[in-house]
């Protein structure tokens, strides 16, 4: 039932997500600021919601009937399908974006929360744990969990060098991935506002995003410490606590999202937003850009450094799969 509740919550959030879009944007298309209130926009939003729930409700029904968690994943193609259709229909109402770009040459320098120490802390802690494990091998648990389902730990491995150091490497790769995203949002994304209160809001929004990813980077590191030192402490409440913290942070992001002007926009061409979700622009030097549908930042998949960062999460997942 928890899974059904999560699925319903996510779908409800996606249902209302069009209302959280920045002014001047409609399903990731630059439009006249008055367009979202028009009857045509209402029809597009309705079709998005119908497609979304057309996938969500059957996935819930199939999961309830068969108890197979795989059916829950049906929501993902449903969202992409709904978004693709809405984005395509919105393109018919696209308005020309502002081509002028203004940049402040005197913007204050931004720093990563906690500085280099905070950036390196999760990775250094994992390195320290690896060193401790090598010297206290017999104090490690004989077997420990590496995967958790809705009812707690459901996959365990025996204490071997491959499993112990594989776990640490996987968690290290995951922490590195989150740290890189936090750093990237702060230093490798575009400042779209040249001055005034909106520029201040943008800086604050970037900082909150960096803090979120720093917190996420600490999670795999903390998990590794608990697994190898006290595996009995891992339980479903830990995942629940992480979800609550994540929800609080997301609410902070929504509350503090910058009110970019509809006219200036985010300086990303409409044609580079694929399905309205994925930004692909090899000519854009920014590694991260503001999401056009949703809150936060997304990769510029046309930039090779985005793929270099994604390689770390692929490494983390691959190591986890090997550990099963």
């Amino acid at each position, binding site marked *: 039932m928890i899974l059904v509740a999560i699925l319903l919550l996510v779908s409800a959030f996606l249902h209302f997500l069009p209302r959280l879009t920045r002014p001047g944007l409609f399903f990731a298309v630059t439009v006249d600021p008055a367009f979202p209130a028009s009857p045509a926009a209402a029809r597009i939003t309705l079709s998005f919601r119908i497609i979304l729930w057309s996938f969500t409700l059957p996935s819930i029904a199939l999961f309830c009937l068969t108890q197979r968690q795989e059916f829950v994943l049906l929501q993902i193609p449903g969202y992409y399908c709904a978004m693709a259709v809405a984005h395509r229909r919105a393109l018919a109402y696209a308005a020309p974006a502002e081509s*002028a770009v*203004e*940049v*402040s040459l005197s913007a204050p320098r931004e720093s990563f929360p906690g500085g280099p120490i905070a950036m390196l802390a999760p990775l250094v802690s994992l390195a320290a744990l690896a060193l401790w494990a090598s010297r206290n091998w017999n104090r490690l648990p004989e077997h420990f969990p590496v995967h958790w389902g809705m009812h707690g730990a459901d996959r365990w491995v025996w204490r071997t060098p491959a499993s112990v150091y594989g776990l640490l490497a996987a968690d290290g790769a995951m922490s590195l991935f989150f740290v890189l995203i936090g750093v990237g949002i702060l230093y*490798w994304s575009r*400042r779209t506002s040249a001055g005034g209160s909106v520029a201040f809001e943008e800086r604050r929004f970037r900082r909150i995003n960096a803090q979120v990813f720093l917190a996420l980077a600490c999670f795999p590191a903390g998990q590794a410490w608990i697994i190898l030192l006290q595996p009995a402490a891992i339980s479903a409440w830990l995942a629940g606590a992480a979800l609550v913290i994540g929800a609080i942070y997301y609410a902070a992001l929504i509350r503090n999202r910058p009110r970019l002007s509809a006219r200036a926009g985010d300086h990303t061409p409409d044609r580079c937003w694929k399905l309205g979700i994925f930004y692909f622009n090899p000519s854009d*030097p920014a590694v991260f850009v503001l999401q056009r549908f949703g809150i936060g930042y997304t990769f510029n998949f046309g930039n090779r450094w985005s793929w270099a960062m994604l390689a770390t999460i692929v490494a983390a997942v691959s190591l986890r799969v090997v550990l099963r």
Partner: protein
Amino acid sequence: MILRIDLASSVPAVRQIVDGLRLLLVNGELPPGAQLPSVRRLGTDLGVHFNTVAEAYRTLAAEGWLDIARRGGARVIARKPPRPDPESAAGFQRRLRELIADGQSRGFPRGRIARELRRLAESLEEVRS
């Protein structure tokens, strides 16, 4: 201190960056010692390739405005203005006439162009005094 370029303009981005920065330098808004954003930072914010910004910085460095030898961006340096030679003066007059002709071809009346030129001349005189 704002730098503004138009990505849809027929004028190349590097030229717009050079002209925009030069305007700030000439007006004293970027005094000697001021640090400009790094090539990466300015390129990302403007949405142009890093090489475009680097070329703009090199152009201004060749004119004596910037020191780009240091790591971490460009710094404005004190510059002794060169004495204009007859060829540069003729080139400047030609570009000014071309700019005025461009304004007239876009429909700006002569009277308005003349008023703008007078206003600019007055502001230059104020700076000099």
